[in-house]
């Protein structure tokens, strides 16, 4: 009996509380966003959450060190899927990102984000000393990371490729990189920037330009940005109240239940509501980092840090996009936006982190 209670005792209930709070916030926003037109979405999301919680349980029960053995197989699988998606993926708006598996669609580029966290964690866990990395040590992992990144760029999916690079850079920085290496890399990056701009697709360049000057294209992406800003701004301090967001209910924003869900929160719950969501995310991410610091081994720590970076990027890019500080790139908000696979993957990640937190007490 006592061992049973011990298991429960060592579970990180704070983390679970934070996640449940975020999910609840998301459901409130989603209910409002789909109240007049697509009520079925709300119920579907409930199903996804249930499946996601199950995935979280599985992630928790399994020993996370088992993921180290999965690092290479997962890498190979994702690269193969990325090649396949280039060949036979469904083309939507000139990009091939989706693979159809019967009724299901999967996005290999989304899997790549998790894969890269596991792979770098695995690679970093083999570090033999505490010295920082230089170019010599980093060359091989860099090539290994650039393969999936290049494939994602070819889809083209600029946003995910960029995110993959940011996650990798963040994790390498945590593992330690020599100062000289950092400076040279930065200079190299500045050199490559103009080349990158000209290799972008027309619509990608337009998106960035329309961000800089929204009046360029009020009907296209600029329209989204503008309507989202009106929604957020008009929320004021207290918000317009549940189900009373005019921007939301009048459907000025076509995608407000997915990528623009935060504008619903901001409009209906005002500055108070949005500040609360930001605070919840801040607590969640710092909690994950703290669990990483307390981890039993370096792999567990790196997984936590990687997921913390992933969530940080998603939260920042999504919210910045909603308030018009970032181009519209189609990044959903973790635990809040509507979407099945995204919810499941995120909750599975939380499961792994719970597993890291729990196993520090073992052995």
């Amino acid at each position: 009996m006592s061992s049973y209670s011990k298991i429960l005792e060592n579970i990180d209930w704070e983390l679970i509380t934070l996640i449940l709070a975020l999910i609840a916030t998301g459901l409130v926003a989603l209910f409002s966003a789909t109240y007049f037109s697509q009520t079925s979405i709300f119920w579907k999301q409930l199903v996804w959450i249930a499946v996601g919680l199950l995935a979280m349980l599985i992630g928790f029960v399994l020993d996370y060190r088992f993921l180290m053995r999965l690092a290479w197989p997962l890498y190979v699988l994702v690269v193969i899927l990325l090649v396949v998606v280039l060949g036979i993926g469904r083309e939507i708006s000139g990009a091939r990102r989706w693979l159809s598996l019967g009724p299901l669609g999967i996005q290999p580029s989304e899997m790549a984000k998790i894969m890269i966290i596991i792979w770098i964690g695995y690679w970093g866990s083999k570090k033999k000393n505490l010295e920082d990395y230089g170019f010599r040590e980093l060359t091989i992992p860099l090539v290994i990371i650039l393969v999936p990144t290049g494939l994602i760029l070819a889809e083209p999916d600029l946003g995910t490729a960029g995110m993959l690079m940011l996650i990798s850079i963040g994790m390498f920085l945590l593992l330690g990189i020599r100062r000289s290496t950092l400076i040279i890399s930065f200079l190299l990056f500045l050199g490559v920037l103009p080349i990158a701009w000209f290799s972008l697709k027309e619509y990608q360049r337009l998106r960035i330009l329309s961000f800089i000057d929204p009046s360029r294209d009020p009907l296209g992406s600029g329209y989204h940005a503008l309507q989202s800003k009106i929604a957020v701004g008009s929320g004021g301090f207290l918000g317009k109240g549940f189900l009373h967001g005019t921007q939301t209910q009048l459907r000025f924003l076509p995608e407000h239940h997915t990528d623009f869900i935060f504008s619903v929160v901001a409009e209906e719950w005002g500055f108070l509501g949005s500040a609360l969501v930001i605070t919840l995310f801040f607590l969640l991410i710092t909690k994950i980092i703290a669990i990483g610091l307390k981890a039993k081994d370096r792999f567990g720590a790196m997984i936590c840090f990687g997921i913390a970076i992933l969530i940080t990027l998603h939260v920042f890019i999504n919210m910045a996009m909603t308030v018009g500080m970032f181009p519209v790139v189609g990044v959903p908000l973790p635990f809040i936006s509507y979407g099945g696979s995204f919810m499941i993957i995120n909750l599975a990640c939380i499961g792994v982190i719970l597993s890291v937190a729990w196993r520090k007490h073992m052995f």
Partner: protein
Amino acid sequence: MKYSIFGIPIEEEFKYKARGLIIVLGILLAVLFTGLLNMQIFKGAYYEGLSRNNRMRFMSIKAPRGRIVDRNKVVLADSRPSYNIMVIPEDIADVKAIASKVSVLLDKDQKEIEDKINGALSRPYDPIYIAQDISFDQLARVEMEIFNLPGISIDAVSEREYIYKDLFPHVLGFVGEISGKELKLYDGEGYRQGDLIGKIGVEAACEKMLRGKKGRRVFEVDALGRKIKVLEEHQPLKGSEVWLTIDSRLQSIAKEALQEKTGAIVAMVPSTGEILTMVSSPSFDPSIFLSPMTPEMWKEIMKDPMHPLENRALRGQYAPGSIFKLVVSLAGLSEGVIVPENRVFCGGYFNLGRRTFRCWKPHGHGSVDFIRGLGESCDVYFYTMGRAIGIDLIAKYAQELGFGRPTGIELDEATGLMPTQAWKRKRFHDKWHPGETLNTAIGQGYIMVTPIQVAKAMGAMVNGGKVMVPKVFVATQPRVEKEIDIPERDQAIIKEALKYVVQGDSGTARVLRDPMFSIGGKTGTAQVARAMTSKLSDESDIPYPLRDHAWFFGFSPIENPEILVVTVVEHGGHGGSIAAPIVGEVIKGYYFLKDYSREQLF
């Protein structure tokens, strides 16, 4: 205590770097915080005003489609202004009241208007049309009442106009409302429901050039949805002009010549591949596709047994009949099988094993050399030569001339079929029979060609061996697909025979003989149902669907030809009597127009 490497605990190793991570996180969230603070608190009132009066309306303005002009810049397809009554469903307070007012003004059914508005309420901010292309009278009445019609506006758009109606529809094609399938196909190219898109012909092939670029208008409406002022306007960009090599005058001469017969005419400049005329009959008026069609109308058109929408010049596939003898001639001469002076005796039939193959002339041509063999289209001569050359060599030359594959013209076309031994094995799992070579040698059997393929191949036969890719756009550079090396001597003898067809005493197209014009050519009769009809001597006794297709290709002048005309008349009967006169009229029309334009010049 937990230790990682060399006894250093994880917490020690990552402490400072993790703190860095938290600082970055803090900065990022602080940026968001400031952004929200600024927008929601400092500028909150401003945005609230915007949202309360979110009375901005966005509308895209359709671009006028580019013109299509003929080689003399005569306009064939144009855009004209047209007026539609537009509604933004969101702005209609009382659907019934508005519908009743509008129905009186437009003299339309009130219920229909109501249904249209109600049907669009699921997307209340997308403008819809409740009446299209209204008359000037209707326009004037609505204009006067517009301030009593909140939510209703008049939208001027440009409408496609096909000036020559049924003269060019197969070449020009037509535009129609974009389908769901096309919307998916061109996703990301700015098409929307209700847009027009080229469906077939030049309209489809040059869609990118012709469509232009949409403009847009951002305007403000009052609480009743009436336009208050335009905030921003970007004029649409008219589509580019497409310049065709077609001569509309020659086209109408050709259409006249074909009359009501079913078939096709192609006129081409043999040295460049420029298409001067492309007629397909029966025809239709492409304007019918501009207004929304009822399913019954569609059914009627699609079910028409004559398939008026089909461009027979490019997509009609027929056996070439005796026209194909030219290909056999080229193969025979080049391979040394045909020696022009050598004679073949034609007694009206040719025995192969136990089978007898007949010549079209029941009692035979007697002893014929190459010129008479081709000029009088003696089947026995070509049975003999075809058998000696063999099917695969014949196919090789046919393929060099472009048979059995698309010609490369800018429009949608059929492939035709050039049979070979390998093809038969693959298609029927059967070996090639020698008798099939004989059939192929006179252009019957499996072989299928399109009129445009015949024009391309025959062009090469009379221009010295250059296989030109046919083209209808002035902007396309003339392209030599292949240069077949035909010795001068062979070229001369082939032309001699083609001249004999028209000018020889027993030529199969003697009807065209005219000392004023230097015309050569070749007749062809593609059998449709051989066994039955051979017993009936008089053409008019044969039931129409079983009558042969009549072919003729003619060119002029014989030396350095300027024009080549191919025609096929479905179930027309004999090439010489039916098809040749049509080609003759087109060639004469060509010279008439040439003289006429010269006179115009001086």
